[in-house]
């Protein structure tokens, strides 16, 4: 049961990612990415991390993808400028680099140095209440630093998109 579920989810996730990379229309690309994020959320559920799955859906599929679609439609760049191929060698080089990484990862996976020991204790650690308790006690400092990071990103985004008074075209 778990095996079938995992294989279906994995195929869906990878298929959506491939479709996202190959589709030339930026809006289609973004929608494939949403499907991919949902697949990843299901993977998190399979791995007993329900809170992470919900965060994945709200933050990635919700907030980030809405931002992406908003910018794509704001700039009217659905078709992109993919036809203007300024660097013709770039695509084959990218393909070679990606395949090289696949080969390296495959080598590391199928010729392991030492077998990975797996512990099988039943756990409720992924439950939101335990996670929250940890987040607000042991990991309070990283949590606060993250909030500062978000504040910096917020201010940065506002400053970058602010209209300057004099037209300062480069």
């Amino acid at each position: 049961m778990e095996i079938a579920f995992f294989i279906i989810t994995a195929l869906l996730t990878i298929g959506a990612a491939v479709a996202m990379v190959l589709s030339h229309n930026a809006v289609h690309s973004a929608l494939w990415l949403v499907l991919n994020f949902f697949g990843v959320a299901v993977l998190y559920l399979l791995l007993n991390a329900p809170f992470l799955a919900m965060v994945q859906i709200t933050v990635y599929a919700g907030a980030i993808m809405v931002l992406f679609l908003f910018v794509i439609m704001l700039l009217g760049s659905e078709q992109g400028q993919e036809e203007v191929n300024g660097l013709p060698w770039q695509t084959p080089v990218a393909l070679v680099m990606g395949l090289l990484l696949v080969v390296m990862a495959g080598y590391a996976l199928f010729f392991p140095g030492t077998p990975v020991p797996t512990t099988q204790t039943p756990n409720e650690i992924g439950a939101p209440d335990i996670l929250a308790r940890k987040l607000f006690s042991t990991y309070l400092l990283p949590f606060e630093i993250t909030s500062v990071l978000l504040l910096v990103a917020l201010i940065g985004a506002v400053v970058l998109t602010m209209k300057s008074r004099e037209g300062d075209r480069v």
Partner: protein
Amino acid sequence: MRSIVTAMPLEAILTVAAALFCIGLFGALSRRNIIGILMGVELMLNAVNINLIAFWRYLEPTNTSGLIFAIIAITVAAAEAAVGLAMVIAVYRTRLTINADEVDTLRG
């Protein structure tokens, strides 16, 4: 209750994550559209998160560090997307293009 730990080896999940990372890398390297590049980067960050969760679940299920790290990585990804897209808008305003090849003012 049976769980995925007994049903699937850790390597299967790592393979999925590695495949997603490679696809994201290819997307980030092959795209001309800056938004496409950012989407590839998001895919790669996602793959890393899957790795973190898988290692937590299989090796250290009693230790929450993996989960906390994944949550912080998601936050960083959100900040990265916000600032990246703000930069896309700023570039579009001054250059009227979002093609990464045409933004070459710093080229020597």
